[in-house]
């Protein structure tokens, strides 16, 4: 996306009376239609879990109930020629990012809702199929809380950070590295991708130092990333799925923030993009007005917005993570709304995107 001039304009406009930048609404941008064409086989109605959705879709795709099901699917509007033309139009976008690594931090509502989950997995597999190399990093706060409660442990938070004693750390490690991680891997496999589930402890992918000064137990600050394993997997067309459990280098597991982990992994891989999936549309000028979204921001622009209090609360750590990544050489970072269908494809494969892009 080449919109740095737009970004400068936004920065200049902020202190002199901000004018919202209206998103350019292109009806049916080519790749959204192509995305729908390609992923139409991976969506059905009436599935209650993501796995069921994908299982049902497989039947359709493999031609089992093609005639009956096609009737309900979106591509009945498109002729065969249409579909192929759309794909052909999408070629420049695909070529731009072919072979490039994209680190996606997966979280929020998109991680809980089965339909959204299936959608994200489908988009991921599509990217991998066209030669863009996704790496998925995930956390899983809500799932951890569920299991802590089941085991009779009280979840405890201090200043937004989870107080992680030994018992809690065990559960965090099991839930993130086991349950959440493997369910994602399974979904990707079901959709035709080749996924490998890892956590930060595997081959020291994420090294961290315990933040003893904060007195919240086994919570860590990322100090290093050993990316050899991920590079090997990505080069062999696997999709690594990394859980945000880190090692302290001496065998102790540490709980790290998934956004930070994703940012540092992106830096270590010198990724083309870092994409953070959240539950907001992006960086908004007015938090109640989704159309007041900043499409492009520069580093200085971000610093100004933080100073003015427009970027506040939970958005600050995410923006900090983006800034850190950018300063270490990641080409662009994006904050997108995971609740929106195909948000991942739209951000990557259209000029205007759907979220906020922060560039250097």
């Amino acid at each position, binding site marked *: 996306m080449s919109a740095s001039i737009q970004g400068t304009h936004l920065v200049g406009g902020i202190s002199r009376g901000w004018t919202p930048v209206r998103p350019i609404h292109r009806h049916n941008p080519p790749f959204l239609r192509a995305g729908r064409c390609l992923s139409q086989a991976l969506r059905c109605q009436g599935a209650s879990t993501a796995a069921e959705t994908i299982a049902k879709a497989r039947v359709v795709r493999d031609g089992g109930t093609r005639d009956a099901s096609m009737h309900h699917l979106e591509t009945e509007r498109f002729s065969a020629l249409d579909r192929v033309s759309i794909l052909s139009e999408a070629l420049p976008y695909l070529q731009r990012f072919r072979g490039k690594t994209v680190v996606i931090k997966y979280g929020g509502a998109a991680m809980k809702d089965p339909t959204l989950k299936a959608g994200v997995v489908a988009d991921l597999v599509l990217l991998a199929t066209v030669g863009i190399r996704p790496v998925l990093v995930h956390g899983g706060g809500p799932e951890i809380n569920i299991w802590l409660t089941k085991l009779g442990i009280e979840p405890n938070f201090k200043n937004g950070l989870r107080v992680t004693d030994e018992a809690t750390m065990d559960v965090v490690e099991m839930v993130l590295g086991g349950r959440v991680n493997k369910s994602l891997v399974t979904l990707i496999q079901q959709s035709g991708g080749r996924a490998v589930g890892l956590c930060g402890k595997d081959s020291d992918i994420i*090294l961290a130092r315990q933040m003893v000064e904060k007195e919240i137990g086994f919570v860590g600050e990322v*100090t290093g*990333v050993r*990316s050899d394993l991920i590079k090997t997997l990505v080069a062999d067309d696997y999709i690594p799925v990394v859980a945000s459990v880190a090692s302290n280098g001496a065998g102790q597991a540490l709980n790290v923030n998934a956004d930070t982990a994703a940012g540092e992994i992106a830096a270590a891989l010198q990724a083309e993009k870092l994409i953070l999936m959240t539950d907001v549309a992006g960086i908004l000028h007015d938090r109640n007005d989704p159309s007041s979204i900043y499409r492009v921001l520069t*580093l*200085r622009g971000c610093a100004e917005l933080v100073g003015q209090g427009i970027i506040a609360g939970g958005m600050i750590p995410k923006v900090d993570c983006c800034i850190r990544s950018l*300063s*270490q050489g990641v080409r662009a970072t994006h904050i997108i709304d995971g609740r929106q269908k195909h948000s991942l494809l739209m951000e990557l494969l259209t000029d205007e995107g759907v979220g906020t892009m922060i560039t250097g």
Partner: protein
Amino acid sequence: MTVSQVRGAGVQGGHKERYAGTEYGGKTNFLVDKTRLDIVVVRSQVDKVIQTIASTTYTGEIGDGKIFVHPVADVIRVRTGETGAIAERMEGGMSDRTS
């Protein structure tokens, strides 16, 4: 302009620099990979060059680097043997465009 790959470090009062996802500044990894630019321009263009470099490479994080300005006694173009201001001057450069 000459570009070289070097290794360097500053000591930021204990704060660590991040590079490729790893913290630097400890005893075992003190030096970080950096890029060094050597640029010689006529006095009147120095400020413009500094401004351009500083604004494009700014990140706000530790590790952005420093710019040192020093005088150059002479410039000699090897191919033609020219010296001084003529040797520094580049055809199609800023002074050609503004004059």
